[in-house]
Structure formats: C-alpha cells, structure tokens
C-alpha cells in the first residue's frame, strides 16, 4: 500500500512540475543540491550523502517518464528560510530563488505555504515534496478541526507531518520545513524534515544561506522585540544571507503569525534592500 502511494505521489509530482518547470537539459554530472542539505548543521544534523547527489540518479521505485525525457526536479536546498518566536508571535522570512546547479531557475518562488489561516509552513529541499506534503497536512488539519470543533495545535500539526514523511524515510524525499502557528499554548514553531526530525525551538534557519541568517538573527533577537523590530530583523537576516549565498536571492517574503492568524507583512526585492541599507549606513 505504501509503494502504491509513493508511485502516486511521484506521478502527481510529474504532472505538477511538467507545466511549470522549464526543460533543463543538463548533463548528468551536474549536481543540483549544492551547498548544504535541508537541515541546519547547527542542530547536529548531517545532510545524508543522498541529499547532495545529482538527482538524475534513477530511483528504482520510480518508473521512467513516458516521453523518455528525464525531467530533473528542482530542489531548493539552495535557499534561506528562517523563523523565530518573540513576544508577539512568530516571524517567518524566506527568500525566493530557485537554482538548478548554477542556473537560477526562478527569482519569484513562493517558499511559504499557507497551510490554513493560522498555520504556515516554509519550504526547503524539494519544492514538490514540500508543497505536496504540506497541502496534505492542510487537509488533515481541516479534518481535525471539523471532527474536534477546535483548531489543531502546532505541536499536533507538526507531529502529523513528521509521521507522514517518516513512512517514506530513505525513499528519497527531501524536505526541511518549519511549521509555524499560534495555538492555545501561544506561538508555536517546529522544524520537521524528511529524515524524521521534529524539533521544537524558538529560532530556526534552514538552507544554504542559513549560517549567514543565524549570524544576523542571533545578534539581534530578543523576546521583547516590537513587531516592527522583529520584521526588520527577519528581513535583514534574509538580505544578508542573499548577499553572501549565491543560491539565495530574489525577494524577501515576510510573514507575521499572531493570535488572530498570520499576516503577510512585506515582499522586498533584495536589490532595493541593498541600496536602502547602504544609504542607512
């Protein structure tokens, strides 16, 4: 039953991506996932060798595509996403660049997935894996809400996601996501990845640019920040990461999760931010 589901999800991925992704003709020596696995190494996680292999390796479970052309799936290990808790909730900030090797595939990727009006998920790793599983999570959360007449807690939502992907551990899923929300216990932030990790924390950064983001965040984060200060901190952290990390860039998308749900705060192009910060200094 597990295998069938997996094949189904692979087929779903193919149909989802065939429309959107351009036809990248690479030679198989190119590796996509350059520069860091989905998990921040600050947590003591090693990206498994599988993460940084070229994804032209044939998955034995996956039947070759019908038209014979091997579609390379884009992976967003080259990314910077961050989230941190503070007194007024959770700030979520992400970049918007997707790379395939040294080719910038897109500068306008939405890396924050709106699970429901009070839960957000970030995307790092395989774009399709993240969006598929998080949409499945949205469905589970809604069913929970209908059955139990109350919102699902962030702990439970992240647990559901972790349990779902754990069944596919070792089968090539690549997903490093942060589940952020506000429930009866207050602000909630969990890091969940396809290796089966699920960690609660106050502050996470995920992706190739995470080290740069950590530096900025760690120096500025306090529990008693105001909303504007926290937004600026998140924005600055992503900007600094895009400045130094080649695989992050595009725009900074900023969200704030508070007791009423989440709000999209801003979307700023990093070049504009660059000039803004230069003028300020």
């Amino acid at each position, binding site marked *: 039953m597990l295998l069938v589901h997996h094949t189904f999800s692979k087929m779903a991925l193919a149909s989802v991506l065939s429309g959107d992704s351009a036809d990248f003709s690479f030679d198989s020596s190119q590796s996509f996932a350059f520069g860091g696995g989905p998990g921040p190494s600050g947590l003591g996680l090693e990206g498994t060798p599988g993460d940084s292999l070229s994804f032209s390796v044939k998955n034995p479970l996956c039947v070759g595509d019908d038209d014979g052309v091997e579609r390379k799936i884009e992976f967003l290990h080259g990314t910077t996403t961050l989230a941190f808790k503070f007194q007024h909730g959770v700030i979520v900030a992400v970049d918007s660049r997707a790379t395939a090797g040294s080719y910038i595939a897109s500068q306008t990727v939405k890396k924050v997935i709106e699970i429901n009006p009070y839960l957000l998920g970030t995307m790092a790793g395989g774009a399709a894996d993240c969006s598929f599983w998080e949409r499945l999570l949205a469905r589970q959360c809604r069913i929970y809400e209908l059955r139990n007449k109350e919102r699902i*807690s962030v702990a*439970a939502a992240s647990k559901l996601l972790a*349990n779902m992907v754990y069944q596919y551990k070792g089968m090539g899923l690549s997903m490093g996501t942060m589940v952020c929300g506000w429930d009866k216990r207050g602000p909630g932030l969990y890091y969940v990845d396809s290796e089966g990790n699920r960690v609660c924390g106050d502050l996470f950064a995920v992706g190739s640019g995470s080290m740069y983001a950590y530096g900025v965040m760690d120096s500025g984060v306090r529990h008693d920040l105001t909303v504007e200060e926290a937004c600026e901190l998140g924005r600055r952290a992503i900007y600094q990461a895009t400045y130094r990390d080649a695989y992050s860039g595009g725009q900074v998308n900023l969200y704030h999760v508070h007791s009423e749900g989440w709000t999209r705060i801003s979307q700023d192009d990093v070049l504009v931010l660059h000039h803004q910060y230069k003028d300020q200094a």
Partner: protein
Amino acid sequence: MRTMMCSRLDEEQSGHRTHPHLLLSTIFFFFSPDGHLFQVEYAQEAVKKGSTAVGIRGKDIVVLGVEKKSVAKLQEERTVRKICALDEHVCMAFAGLTADARIVINRARVECQSHRLTVEDPVTVEYITRYIATLKQRYTQSNGRRPFGISALIVGFDYDGTPRLYQTDPSGTYHAWKANAIGRSAKTVREFLEKNYTEEAIAGDNEAIKLAIKALLEVVQSGGKNIELAVIRRNQPLKILESKEIETLVTEIEKEKEEEAEKKKQKKST
C-alpha cells in the same frame, strides 16, 4: 429472506468458521421491516439487566457511583471493579456485560495514549466518548459481530478545566448530561435526579457526592455496603472512596432525612 440468509452464511463460512446451524447470527445487520435493529435493542435489554450506575457533574467535581453486586463468600471483593480509569483525568462506569466492557475499556485506554502521542495533548472527554461510540457503532454494522452489550458513563475534566459527563449506549450514540443513570432501575434514579439536581445540590463537592449516594440508595438494597463511589476533582486523579467514607456519608444522609422528616412533622402539627 431465507435465500439471502443462506448466501450470507456461505460468506461467513468461507471467511471464518461459524456454527453452520446458527442462522440467527446473520440477522442483525438487517433492518426489521419497521426500521428497528433488533440486535441493538436486545443489547439495550442486556444493559437494563446490569447493576445500576449513576454519574453526576458538579462544579469542581465529577462523581460516579455504582451498585456493587454482592460477592460470594470466597470471592475477593477487589477484583470486581465497575469503575475504571481511562486516563489520569477521565474515567468510566458501565452497565451491562462485564466482558464486553473490558474490551471497550482496553481500546479506550490505548486510544487515550495514542492521542497523547500524536497530538501531544490529553484527550478531551468528548473525544474519547466519540471514540467509544464510534467503536460501538462499528459493531452494529459489521459482518458476523454483535453489538457491545454495555452502556457507559464517561466523566472527567477537559484540558481547560470544564467538567464533563457523557453517556453512550449500545447503538453508538452519545450525549452529554448533567446527571444520568444506567442499568437496572435507571428510570427511577433518573427521575430522582431530575427532581433533586439543583444548583444548590451540587454547590460543593460533598453535596454532589451525597446526591449520588442518595440517588443510588433509592434502588440499592441494604444501604452503603453495596455502593461503590469514585470521584475526580479538577487536576487530581481518580479517587475511589473507601467503604468507611461511604458509611460516614450514608449516616449523614440518614440523619438529614430524619431531620427533614422532623421538620415536616413540626410543620404539620403547628
């Protein structure tokens, strides 16, 4: 009808071994012509034969009382327990077939822990009641199985401190109650509760316990010895009252009754 029953029987026999001459075993998943599910109704009859249980929802306490069936001389009293904890904050009492209850209780206990594991929160009383009711309903619509012959009273406190009392029956329905009784003479007890469940009657913990005892005394022979009582107070685990405590309360109740009778006599005479 007969040919249908025979073909069902073949299914059963190929599936799992059943007595070839027990055609009755196939009846229950059909409706009767006037819309009854007879097996469910027979199960409810079985419940009515069970010993009485009463549940009361107070303000800061929930009380379960059951009629203790008299044990044989050589039997260890403590092995007969009709009130069981499902988790730290939820417990239930049942009326009907004890063996069926044991299965339901086991499944409910596992579900309470599974819920804690996946959702990282203790179950709400409503959730576990819904689980038990769904379980019971499944057995009313299943091949080769009969419904559970128990009604359950499930009490406890939710995460936010609200006290709850639910009742389930063999058909798989459940309702919330302020006070209810199941089992033998449940009707009498319920009528007593309807008359005597007032805001003052449950104002304090002791009052709620006394109300439960009074309700049971209506139908139980020979007083406090045949009553088993359990309470849950907010944020405290299930506590089963010792027989001494029950005796004390019964004596108090009898004294109050006498005082009431005295007052009435005086009123009449003046």
